[in-house]
């Protein structure tokens, strides 16, 4: 029996006050070392029993193997000018029946956001019908008038989205924020799975983990589907800011797995309302750009004039319908955290459904009395800027010092539109290997969804980010977060996922099961395998011959060889 879970539920060090409601632990209903027998939840039972057999040292060895494999593959991030392997924890997160719920909720959310973006850059019916205040849109720093009236060819603006979810104290999944600009992290989902299967194969045994490798293929199909009308064989490219971008690894991985060109701004030029790339065979037309460059840098003619990352004229080509930019320019307005607070209403308005995944309770500071209440309770709330992502500018009240809170107070009063406030949610915890051993750490989940215009496909899994410092509730990798492989497990019902052509081809193949003729490998006459008795004889002879053989460099033909005996 291993010692892996010793001290798992040890009280927090440092005398920090325990939260009022403890976090939901995803692995244990009854955590170990609390007297009674530890009780793992159903989803984790197999993992727990595999892990419980391991010692801490073993798991640490595997973790090192994960890290060195990432270092070799170049799956790294910059930490103070030094390349560090992307941190991956060896204990996976498991999601079982709950997945269908998440999947449905994410789909619904993406569809509502699509409808919202089409509306806000078009007729603005939601404003006219009083669902959204007009000032909310015009005051959003990510609403770009340049994008108004640009009609996507197949109606899709959010080819790729990452909806950040958390699990609250009762174990319920909630949406924390929407990312429909350029959500990143999917490459880690793909490479985490690969390296886990290579390094911790025994955990996979007996678990039916749904594969994640289909993502690049789905993405490519969605990008091709979004090509301008009338283009038969669309030329898809991935636009990257360049090698110095922190997500460059992801850009190369996606381009590689989709088999498309990875371009930088300087590889593109616009002429005659079309976009071209410079190749050895002359200019080649580009039909779909999966851009990983922010809006402001895409087109110096429309946005920042000093941008070196885009190409002048891109927006014109998009407006003319000659190129598709995916995700669409201007999507950032949907990421605005004040818009987020209206999402349940928007889902009802556009889809006539109730939100499947609830939001986290949020104060809009411009509403009557909200600012006063928030200012009053600042030390127990989380306050976030509305237009940032990745936890930038976020202040956790209970962890902040007095001067920090005072400064925040003046900023809130100066710009109530720019901030939202939320209660501190204790994110669910998952066992994670840290310096002291395996300990509960808070985690979130970013599932990725791909919209090809006919269906929204949710990648079974997603990026689980985990905060490594004890009690830390911000899980960003830029803030010392780690990651976990996320396993969606399930039984038979998923087999329908196999595509129809595959099934048909498979059926055709089974109708006439070919009998494989075994071809025994050819061997050099000198190295042909010998029967065991013969081999023994030979070994005996060789032992007797040892002195002789060292004396002669080339031995005469060995007498024990049989001839004329084909190997196959």
């Amino acid at each position, binding site marked *: 029996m291993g010692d892996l879970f010793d001290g798992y539920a040890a009280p927090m060090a440092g005398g920090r006050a325990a939260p009022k409601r403890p976090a939901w632990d995803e692995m244990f209903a009854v955590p170990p070392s609390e007297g009674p027998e530890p009780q793992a939840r159903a989803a984790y039972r197999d993992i727990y029993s595999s892990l419980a057999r391991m010692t801490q040292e073993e798991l640490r060895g595997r973790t090192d193997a994960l890290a060195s494999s990432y270092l070799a593959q170049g799956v790294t991030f910059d930490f103070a000018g030094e390349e560090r392997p992307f941190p991956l924890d060896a204990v996976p997160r498991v999601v079982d029946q709950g997945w269908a719920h998440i999947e449905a909720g994410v789909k619904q959310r993406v569809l509502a956001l699509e409808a919202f973006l089409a509306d806000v850059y078009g007729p603005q019916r939601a404003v006219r019908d009083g669902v959204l205040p007009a000032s909310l849109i015009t005051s959003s720093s990510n609403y770009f008038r340049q994008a108004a009236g640009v009609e996507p060819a197949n109606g899709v603006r959010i080819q790729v989205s990452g909806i950040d979810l958390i699990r609250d104290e009762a174990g319920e999944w909630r949406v924390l924020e929407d990312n429909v600009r350029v959500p990143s992290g999917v490459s880690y989902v793909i490479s985490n799975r690969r390296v886990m*299967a*290579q390094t911790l*194969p025994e955990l996979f045994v007996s678990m039916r983990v749904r594969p994640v490798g289909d993502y690049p293929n789905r993405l490519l199909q969605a990008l091709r589907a979004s090509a301008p009308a009338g283009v038969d064989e669309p030329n898809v490219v991935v636009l990257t800011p360049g090698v110095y971008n922190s997500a460059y690894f992801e850009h190369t991985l996606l381009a590689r797995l989709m*088999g498309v060109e990875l371009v930088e701004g300087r590889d593109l030029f616009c002429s005659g309302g079309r976009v071209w790339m410079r190749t050895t065979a002359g200019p080649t037309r580009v039909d779909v750009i999966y851009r990983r460059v922010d809006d402001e840098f895409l087109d110096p003619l429309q946005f920042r004039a000093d941008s070196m990352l885009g190409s002048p004229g891109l927006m014109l080509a998009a407006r003319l319908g000659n190129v598709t930019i995916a995700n669409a320019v201007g999507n950032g307005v949907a990421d605005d955290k004040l818009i987020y607070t209206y999402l349940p209403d928007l889902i009802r308005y556009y889809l006539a459904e109730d939100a499947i995944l609830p939001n986290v309770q949020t104060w809009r500071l411009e509403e009557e009395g909200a600012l006063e209440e928030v200012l009053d309770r600042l030390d127990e709330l989380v306050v976030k800027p509305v237009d940032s992502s990745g936890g930038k500018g976020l202040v956790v009240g209970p962890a902040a010092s007095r001067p920090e809170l005072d400064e925040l107070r003046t900023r809130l009063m100066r710009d109530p539109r720019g901030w939202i406030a939320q209660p501190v949610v204790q994110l669910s915890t998952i066992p994670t290997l840290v310096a002291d051993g395996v300990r509960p750490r808070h985690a979130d989940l970013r599932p990725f969804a791909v919209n090809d215009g006919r269906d929204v496909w949710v990648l079974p899994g997603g990026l689980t980010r985990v905060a490594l410092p004890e009690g830390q509730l911000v899980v960003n990798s830029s803030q010392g977060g780690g990651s976990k492989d996320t396993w969606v497990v399930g039984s038979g019902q998923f087999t329908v996922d196999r595509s129809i052509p595959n099934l048909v081809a498979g059926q055709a193949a089974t109708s006439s099961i070919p009998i494989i003729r075994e071809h025994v490998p050819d061997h*050099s006459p000198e190295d042909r395998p010998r029967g065991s008795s013969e081999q023994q004889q030979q070994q005996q002879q060789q032992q007797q011959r040892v002195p002789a053989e060292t004396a002669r460099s080339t031995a005469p033909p060995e007498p024990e060889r049989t*001839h004329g005996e084909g190997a196959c």
Partner: protein
Amino acid sequence: MLSRIAESLFWIGRYIERSDGTARILDVHLQLLLEDPWIEEDTACRALLSVMGSSAPDDRELSREDVLALLAVDRTHPASIAYSLGAARENARRAREIVSTELWECLNTTRARMPRRVSSEKVHEFFAWIRERAALAVGVIESSTSRDESWLFFTLGRSIERADMTARLLATRSLTEVSGPSWTTILRSCGAYEAYLRTYRGVPSARNAAEFLLLDRLFPRSVLFSVSRAEECLRELEPRSERVGVSDQAQRLLGQIRSQLEYTPIAEVLDDLPRQMDAVQDVTSAASEAIRSRYFPTSAAPSWIGED
């Protein structure tokens, strides 16, 4: 060049290529067993074994570990990586005076460091190591061997083995739906996945992937490329220009299978993939035998066979 030396070089080429090919096939297929929950482990393992030319005992369920033990580290199993690398080293020893010191040391250390068992978490690392060693051996030869007969025989062996390995791999596709690997897996097995994606820009379809691995003229692991390469080597080995036909049996065999593949519509090849791959493997064996009888004629060596 002595026939015996030429034969050793030919077999060094074949065995190095075989160890590399086997490592690739095993790596991807064993990984697939973990990643894809719909695969029946026993069936898949049996299929893998039979494609590699070794049958398995019927009496019990087979697991990844069994396949690994047999095809990777078992030194006595003729289809195993350990066996191939051992044989490559033996051949180098027999031709030690021709083989460069660098190559000899490479093959010798590889055999010496060959583990006797591989724990399950080190499997991928192990295969990567095998591939690296094979690449090192090939690189040493490519960068320092004069392009004379010794290089030709080595390359001839490699090319023939490559054609054989790719044919084996394609044969795995003809297994049943449940256990058969996808085209993606097959392409990944021979390191062709990224090259394929760049060439066809899209999801592997049966037709394109088969076309790529069978008939691509530029991809070095395709059957056509390997067979053509072997033919070139044979032509150079016998530069007598002839006005009529081909007199060399091996060249004849390889030329026939090449034309057959090259000029049959791909749809027909696909319909009959197992038989076609059978034919390729037959030809590589027969060509190997023809090369032996032409270039490495050993007088019937005296033989003693037991006393029964």
